[in-house]
């Protein structure tokens, strides 16, 4: 494996993804990430000079909606997925700006 992932990197990626990993999971994640980056390095061997970066696989473009209200009130249904609700709103842990 050419790419060695440091403990700091795994820690940082964990924070960004809001994941709490056990030591064993961290070791596994380091290996997996290393392998993934090796694969990306392999792609890097290709000569891509003058090739536009691609963001979509299919040749589809300009898919638009007209500006017309098509949705009605489905609050009950949407809130039924929430672990907790109050006054028609989703309850979340106390959050400040």
């Amino acid at each position: 494996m050419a790419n060695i992932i440091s403990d700091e990197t795994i820690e940082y990626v964990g924070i960004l993804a809001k994941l709490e990993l056990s030591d064993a999971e961290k070791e596994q994640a380091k290996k997996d990430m290393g392998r993934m980056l090796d694969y990306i390095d392999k792609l890097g061997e290709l000569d891509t000079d003058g090739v536009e970066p691609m963001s979509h696989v299919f040749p589809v473009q300009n898919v638009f909606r007209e500006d017309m209200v098509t949705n009605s009130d489905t609050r009950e249904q949407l809130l039924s997925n929430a672990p907790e609700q109050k006054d028609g709103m989703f309850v979340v842990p106390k959050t400040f700006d």
Partner: protein
Amino acid sequence: MAKQYETVIGLEVHVELATKTKIFCGCSTAFGGAPNTHTCPVCTGMPGSLPVLNKQVLEYAIAVGLATDCEITRYGKFDRKNYFYPDNPQNYQISQLYLPICRNGGVEIETEEGGKKIVGIHEIHMEEDAGKLVHDEWEDCSLVDYNRSGVPLIEIVSEPDMRSAEEVIAYLEKLRLIIQYLGASDCKLQEGSMRADVNLSVREVGAEEFGTRTEMKNLNSFKAIARAIEGERERQIDLIEEGKAVVQETRRWDDTKGESYAMRSKEDAQDYRYFPDPDLVPIIVSDEMLDEIRAKQPEFRTEKMARYKEEYDIPDYDIDIITGAKHMADLFEATVAICNQPKKVSNWLMGETMRLMKEKEVDVEDLRFSPENLAKLITLVDSKAINSSVAKEVFEVMFEEDIDPEKYVEEKGLKTVNDEGALRKTIEEVIAGNPQSVDDYHNGKEKAIGFLVGQTMKAMKGKADPGMVNQILKELL
């Protein structure tokens, strides 16, 4: 000698677009709905839901770009900005990092010295707004309302070209006017449909390099912006004079306290891990699309001013003020179209309307009276059905609740008494009751007649034509 400092300011302006629906779903953007009643699986971030771009958002963004001399990006796309916050249900905001819809534009502003200067626009991109967090008063939790989630925004990023609060406000006013003329947004700072974040740094006059900048948030009026700029300039200069470093950070302005505090510094800056949104396909802006949008561009202020000069016989001063707000200009044109009295309409708008707007703190967009009713009022005065002081009283009521002045005058019995006999009788009584003033008048005190006119108007409860009263008085005296 004390060092001289220069303030360097750039702005990030968010504008809520005036579309009927959200940027990526068919939910209404109307204000005031009960919490979460304008939501669907897309704008609440349900797995498997797919966003589709509202064409009107793209057209407004391009229209603003064209009106601010931007280059329009012909191949654009959307990117995901990843962060966790409960007002953002997808855990990413759909925005544009790599290929924003507009770039390299600018608007011209007038400087304090009376010169002109271009404030560059770095880019304009489209993105979605977040939901609203409400803090529960009773329980230790927060509540989320996603009605605003997915409301379309454009973010207009300027170059660091401004040097004072006056220039910042001139730039914002110019931007607001352009966007209002386009009908792309009402741009109300107080209500948050226009939000400005101020990036500010200071440097010694003559320095080449920029100083370290801070970003100021929570500015919801022009006054707050001006105060925040002054406050932040002072704070940074103090730090530098004390030999301390300015820290690159985001600060929140507290306008009641007149000071700011740090929200987050660059050290714990977020890593947004932007990447192209695979759910949204690329946008190709064709020549036809651009031509179509160009053809729909409205008459902007300079063109409007030129046309007013040509069409209406009103002074330049009036033109300047009336075209200063799109809504005012619309009101003016619609009223003149009915009563064909440009100068009189202009007088009502610049006089009583502006006086009452100031007194009652009403925004131009919130004016209630209709062009029809203003035209009727003008006609009532022209035909001498009411005199000008009664007209002002009626207008105050119209200003509050857009009543029909004809009906109102009828119902309240405010019509001028044109019955000369009745008027003559009242005047005779006034003359008999005020011998002193009559003597004064005869002894050459011309002013005494004013008192007698006043007494007559009072006796007539204001419902007389002052010209006619004057005439009869002189005759009888």
